[in-house]
């Protein structure tokens, strides 16, 4: 077990959660909660894998993954923005639909090979002493994309005009409407962007970071962890990203814990009784609950973060938010 290895693995697999969580943050900041992340990730992973395999081109696969997530999210948009249906239930049905669709269309993909997005070291930056070899060396391209996404999302949300409009629509749609901002248009846009990022997160799994298609096990609940991260991070992309990396490290850590026979001078129980590993596998899910309890408590104390109009359909001309 090597701390450096765990750290680097965390940066790598954490990218998946980070991308999905930032997508969800953008959608929720505009007032649309989309619980279909798991389904969108799965369809993105499937589409990316299938297209990359058929065309033997990873880049086309990547595009397909992004688009698949985006298109699926538009269904959610149609139902909750135009038809004003319940956002929670629609998001859930999107998960069922995305999962089912991915299983149907991904039939027979298991075990096939596909071209993948390349890994490389960043010139110059990787030469920085200490930091360079750890965070700029020999990672998948999408890990670096993840790095960039964090400041871009932060800057966009807090410092740009469209970002401000997006927040206004999520906080007080009627006021935004009277300023001439299209509430429906904005919500559709960020629902779509969120879906594209969820699709990208899925593609990141299947054709970049842990290539392959293992039906519904491909995402194994990471979409839900991403949603929990959003709540925990109080809709802030930087905190969400740090949380994503942390969960990535945790995953690797619980894996590594099974290796050595001795642990800090003690007999390692996970080495001698392999069945105890089931308890290790629970850890990320239990920790998500702990993070949520902590996040909810902190959110209540500070009374901030949650977009005020989150989950509430906007009906033009009616009194409301």
């Amino acid at each position, binding site marked *: 077990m090597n701390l450096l290895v765990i750290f680097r693995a965390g940066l790598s697999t954490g990218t998946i959660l980070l991308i999905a969580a930032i997508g969800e943050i953008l959608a929720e900041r505009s007032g649309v909660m989309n619980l279909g992340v798991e389904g969108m990730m799965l369809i993105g992973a499937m589409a990316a894998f299938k297209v990359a395999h058929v065309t033997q081109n990873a880049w086309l696969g990547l595009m397909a993954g992004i688009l698949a997530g985006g298109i699926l999210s538009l269904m959610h948009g149609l139902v909750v923005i135009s038809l004003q249906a319940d956002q929670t239930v*629609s998001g859930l049905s999107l998960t*069922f639909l995305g999962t089912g669709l991915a299983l149907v269309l991904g039939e027979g993909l298991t075990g096939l090979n596909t071209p993948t997005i390349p890994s490389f070291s960043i010139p110059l930056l990787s030469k920085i002493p200490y930091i360079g070899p750890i965070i700029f060396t020999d990672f998948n391209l999408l890990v670096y994309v993840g790095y960039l996404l964090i400041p871009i999302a932060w800057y966009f949300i807090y410092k740009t005009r469209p970002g401000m409009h997006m927040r206004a629509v999520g906080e007080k749609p009627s006021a935004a409407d009277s300023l001439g901002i299209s509430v429906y248009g904005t919500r559709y846009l960020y629902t779509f962007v969120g879906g594209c990022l969820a699709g990208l997160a899925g593609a990141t799994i299947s054709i970049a970071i842990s290539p392959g298609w293992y039906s519904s096990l491909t995402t194994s609940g990471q979409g839900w962890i991403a949603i929990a991260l959003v709540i925990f991070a109080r809709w802030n992309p930087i905190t969400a990203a740090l949380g994503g990396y942390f969960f990535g490290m945790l995953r690797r850590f619980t894996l590594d814990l099974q290796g050595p026979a001795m642990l800090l001078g003690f007999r390692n129980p996970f080495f001698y009784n392999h069945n105890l590993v089931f308890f290790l596998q629970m850890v990320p899910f239990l920790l998500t*609950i702990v993070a949520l309890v902590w996040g909810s408590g902190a959110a209540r104390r500070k009374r901030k973060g949650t977009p005020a109009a989150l989950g509430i359909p906007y009906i033009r001309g009616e009194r409301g938010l």
Partner: protein
Amino acid sequence: MRLPYRIKFEPRTKDVPKWLPFATSMGAIIVAFIISGIVLWAIGGNPFRVYRYFFSAAFGSWGAFSDILVKATPLIMIGLGCAVAFKMNILNIGAEGQFYMGAFFASMVVLVPIIPLDSPKWMVLTLMAVMGILGGALYGFIPGFLKAMFNVNEIITTLMLNYVAVYWNNYWIFGKYSDAGFQMTPTFDKVAWLPRLADLAREHPFFSGITLHLGVVFGLVAAVLIWVILKHSRWGYEITLIGDNPKAANYAGINIKKNIILVMMLSGALAGLAGMSEVTGVVHRLQERISTNYGFSGVIVAWLAKLNPFAVIPVAILFGALIVAGREIQPSGLSFMIQGTILFLVISSDVFLRYKVSIVRRHQEEAA
């Protein structure tokens, strides 16, 4: 671009006609099958053949129909549990986990064993049912408590607990009670088997091979009980009021926190009983994947039944058919996809309940 026609939404001022919720649910089912047929066709399948196969696999014989009822049995209980929680706007998506915990607790009666296995059958089975209910209720208590005390989003907690329950069960199946290293416990003693119609085959040859078990009675009784609770009890009134208008409920002095916890426990108890009925009635041991996503299908069943306890029964039977046929037809994700599409369409069709939707011609409208 302006189309000459426009879809007009008018808020309903009068009550929704009684037949409309039923009609929208039926419509959603039909349209879901059409859409899924188109997807099938697009990937090179023959939807007519698949659906014909589907119906013969599901309704072709008494044996097949009994299989459907067997699959519908846990769905009735889980659907009822979800319906009660949804009635109060608590989204319990954790029936899957509560089901596993119910199965686990019930199995402990035999595996530990908690009572000697030469006790009378009715005693063993009653204790197993009680344990199943207890396991599910305890597992529903956790998210209920977190929601009531810390306002933690119950959707996420129940979902996370689903994964935890599966790993928990796996530990005991693999680690402690494994049958010769297989991922299952040894088969239970006959004393822990729910009676089946097939047991009567010696006197009534008609029943031979009919696997329907007593669990279906649990489901039917539970439906009546839940209906009585919701329609004719003070507690049911509180649940409905909290669901409709939590502020008013609060002013009326109803303890919302207590009700959140209690409803989650009731919801979990029903899922736990479903788990017990599955291990004692169908598989006769604890093993991996005792649930074919019953917990999630239960959510859809409750929604499609418009949270009506009696409507849950026919909808559960329809979904039982989907599951039975889903085992037979390829590709295997199809029944999942149809279920998702149904749920999507059901909630979008709610727009017809809230609005009068009509198509108007623009030039007529502008003239008026």
